């Protein structure tokens, strides 16, 4: 069975500092990997996705993620965090781009001035 682990429940970052959110997955085949962001009272917005090819994926809002098969990881990064990035971030895995997704429990990002 597929699973996703996001080890950090909360992370606090100073505005302007760099960010890395961790995601580890368990999946028997080549995974389809996603990062979503959810602001309070909102639905999920796709930040980026990895299907194949280049393991460094660029997304919206200046985010990027790197797929590392040997570590079963898909960590999300941003070089300089803005206060508007404060939200909850979810990593997800699926067997295709339109299959059901298994989500991690999320990481809440807090941005301090």
């Amino acid at each position: 069975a597929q699973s996703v682990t996001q080890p950090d429940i909360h992370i606090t970052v100073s505005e302007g500092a760099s960010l890395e959110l961790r995601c580890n997955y368990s999946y028997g085949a080549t995974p389809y990997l996603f990062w979503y962001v959810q602001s309070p009272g909102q639905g999920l917005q796709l930040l980026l996705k990895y299907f194949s090819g280049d393991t460094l994926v660029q997304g919206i809002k200046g985010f990027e993620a790197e797929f590392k098969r040997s570590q079963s990881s898909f960590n999300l990064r941003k070089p300089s965090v803005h206060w508007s990035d404060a939200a909850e971030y979810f990593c997800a895995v699926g067997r295709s781009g339109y299959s059901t997704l298994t989500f991690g429990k999320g990481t809440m990002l807090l941005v301090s001035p």
Partner: protein
Amino acid sequence: EAGVAQSPRYKIIEKRQSVAFWCNPISGHATLYWYQQILGQGPKLLIQFQNNGVVDDSQLPKDRFSAERLKGVDSTLKIQPAKLEDSAVYLCASSGDRHGYTFGSGTRLTVV
């Protein structure tokens, strides 16, 4: 393009009452999903439709939850009777190609 529409945005009901949620997917999207997101957790799939047929409902509590997608477009999710543990955000998503899908804003259900 228009996004995935869901209604109502919020609903408060008493336990043992019934409730229904509605979802209108992106036009032309054949696949529709309902996810349940309990506070502090990631979304969990309840049911997946391909056109008007069910693909996966293995995690749907069928003794109280039901869903339909007549004509392969809109979908409704019903809970009857509701329990306190059904309090959650119910997210609808749709997909029309290989490259991921779009979520609606969700319906926040509170059962008291």
